[in-house]
């Protein structure tokens, strides 16, 4: 991963002392870390450690009670999901959230929505500039289809696809928004070894080809250690480690969190 190291740039997003609670349940306590440009950051931790909450905070779905988020140099306490999307954050979900009755192509096209300039009326008329715009976006969608090697399912309703392929389509939709920061919530959950290998390759290729910054949650330690530049470990809503895969692997607190220790 030497080449990967060289391309990592400045801080893209920084979280400072984020606290998130639902009533009496503290989901995140005093978590701070940063995501740097072009890196692949893995967020790991046992079940209920607050990993998904973390992603939800980053893309503005949850609003932390305390703490600040600095994204692209702008500091803000809260962000709404559509603002996050408009400023270049795209994500996939732990439980696939695609339009099941729509085709792969149409699902990916929905990812282009924020890029469309013509309004609804133009599109309904489907004339002149609207046609040109549609062609532009279709081309972008086709590039993604080509990139993810899903040509054979272009017109298949996603509800009929196997799970692994649905995950790939979801990645495609997130990529369609041409994000600067891509959040992947368990992109490899429920996949077999071959599908995982494919997905790893796609994630590395995304980072490589588009320079996208990626934050991902993953349980498969082999995958995490292989593809990420840096790992943040959460346990009971607290950050217990932050460093390169090798540093984290040897960290006593991490080993305790995973293997269990009497408190």
């Amino acid at each position: 991963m030497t080449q990967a190291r060289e391309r990592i740039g400045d801080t893209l997003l920084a979280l400072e002392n984020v606290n998130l609670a639902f009533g009496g349940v503290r989901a995140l306590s005093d978590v701070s870390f940063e995501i740097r440009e072009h890196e692949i950051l893995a967020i790991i931790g046992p079940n209920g450690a607050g990993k998904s909450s973390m992603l939800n905070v980053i893309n503005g779905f949850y609003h932390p009670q305390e703490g600040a988020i600095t994204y692209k140099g702008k500091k803000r306490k809260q962000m709404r999901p559509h603002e996050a999307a408009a400023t270049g954050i795209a994500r996939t979900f732990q439980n696939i959230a695609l339009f099941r009755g729509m085709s792969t192509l149409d699902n990916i096209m929905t990812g282009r929505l924020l890029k469309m300039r013509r309004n609804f009326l133009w599109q309904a008329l489907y004339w002149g500039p609207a046609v040109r715009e549609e062609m532009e976006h279709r081309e972008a969608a086709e590039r993604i289809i080509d990139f993810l090697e899903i040509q054979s399912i272009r017109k298949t309703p996603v509800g009929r696809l196997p799970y692994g392929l649905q995950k790939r389509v979801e990645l495609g939709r997130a990529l369609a928004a041409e994000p600067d920061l891509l959040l992947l919530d368990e992109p490899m959950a429920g996949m077999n070894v071959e599908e995982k290998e494919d997905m790893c390759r796609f994630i590395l290729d995304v980072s490589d080809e588009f320079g996208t910054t990626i934050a991902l949650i993953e349980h498969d330690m082999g995958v995490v250690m292989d593809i990420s530049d840096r790992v943040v470990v959460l346990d009971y809503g607290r950050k217990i480690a932050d460093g390169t895969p090798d540093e984290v692997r040897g960290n006593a607190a991490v080993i305790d969190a995973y293997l269990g220790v009497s408190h």
Partner: protein
Amino acid sequence: MSSATPENLDTFPKLCADQAAKNGGRPAIREKNFGIWQTWTWAQVAAEVRALACGLAALGLKRGDKIAIVGDNRPRLYWTMTAAQAIGAIPVPLYQDSAAKEMTFVIDHAEVRFAMVEDQEQVDKMIEIRSGDGRLDQVIYDDARGMRHYNHDFLHSFDDVQAAGREFDTANAGFYEAEVAKGTGTDTAIILYTSGTTGQPKGVVLSFDNLVRSAANGIAFDNLCLDEEVLAYLPMAWVGDHLFSFGQSYLAGFCVSCPESSDTVLHDLRELGPTYFFAPPRIFENILTTVMIRMEDAGWVKRRMFHYFMSVAKRCGSDILDRKPVPLANRLLYAIGDLLVYGPLRNTLGFSRVRLAYTAGEAIGPEIFAFYRSTGINLKQLYGSTEASVYITMQPDGEILPDTVGRPAPEVEIKFTDSGEVMFRSPGVFVEYYKSAEATAATKTNDGWVHTGDAGYLNEQGHLKIIDRAKDVGRLNNGALFAPKYIENKLKFFPEIKEAVAYGDQRDYCAVFVNIDLAAVGSWAERNNVAYASYQELAAHPQVLASITRHIEAVNRDLSEDEKLAGSQIERFLVLHKELDADDGELTRTRKVRRSFVADKYDSLVEALYSKLDHTHVETEMTFEDGRKGVIAADLQILSAKTISSAPPLKAAS
């Protein structure tokens, strides 16, 4: 045919220039890219080939050098063949799914200096091959994806090579024309490595004369014209693809289309509606299996309609296609069926416009063959080989006998050895096996006759009937004739059976290994709420075994009606715990079963079939797609099937 191939058009680069002059504005090749068919005209192809040829020359490719071509069917890879030939180099296409180790053999044997490959996957293999000792001077790739960080100085992108070629062309005016003019018909056009059901692959050297004459004969035989539509999807390293998608296109000027990816072939087939289609029997089997599965899932109205009209088609469809007299009532019913069933079916499969479909490579089950012909698809059989530049025999229109492979093709002579082996002589007969005079001498006689290795005979109508590989036809210990392929083909017609391997030569009875078809059996399991976690589990399911037993007994019934083969009915069988796979060496790259290899690998299972055991334990090594190996273990049941004693009781009854 001399009119179509004037003396001066004796190589493909010359033919390419000729097409560009005659049909410059007509489509020559298409590729689906980003969901849209992109077309190159003959004039464009000629320009692309020229730039590439000059680029290769600038990189140092010389007359007589070999260039390996590895990848799916892509226009740029086809152009590489012409471009290499233009400057006198020899293309050596390789099977794109071979592992690096298999490729190394060919690259060493053919002394390949250059490689033109499709993408990162193949580049990685080339890098691995190159890391040995000084193999491969230059590697050129088509698709740069994923290779941002590859900075080896021997790697070049296709576009860069062409750009350098254009400069070279301007600086060396007349170079290209002079190089093309140097080529003659007797030059080596290509070396095709045969996958080889036994031993190491052999490099079949074919000259331009071989290919151009054979291609022209095929065009004349079937009246191929400028407007044919062809889908190029079979491996480029296979002689059939080379002749149909490359050679004949250059001669007749028709357009060849390359599918988007190997997974989209069936979609692309449907969009394109080829008029001239070639597929090995396996593909026709797979399509039929898919149709049958989907019909099982259809509503009862559709299902009834399908089965009713298929029985009509069975009665009279083939005769209608052959323009034979058919009673009016049947003709009317068939017309209705065409409207309701056959037409829509052909359309779904992409065969609406097909004028001519060929199958070859292996015997096709008579039932499968009849299915296609009866639904109005002019499917014909062809018997050929790499050593013959494809054509040995082919079925003429209107003279289709399902159990034969037709009459000798134009300019082909046929004779038989005393043991019944087929021999042929034709203008397509290969020059030699590359660097293997011994193998050449063993196959080709001094006066140009070639041994095929197949046993067969000419029937009364003068059509060739192939029984089996000459060396595979055997006898049971009781003297009954045993033709393994015949039995395997009968079994494989059942949609649930993907592959079968029959044993019996010098044994007491016939026994088989069966591979279930995961698509067909999986669909059955889904409909019947049978849960399974893996291929292995499904293959051992009692209901699956019961159904396979029924199929085996049905085959035994068929065999019992055949006087000669009644003695070789299947007595014992087992369902294998893994799919036979080319990666494990069990199938050839063209997916033919390597019977003796399978017998060696699973010798404990073969022995169990001939013992009294009713189950046995087995551990098998298998290779994953990335080349790693794993072991699977299974307890296999060995089952017995009922045999039917035929009218004259044989000694076998004991």
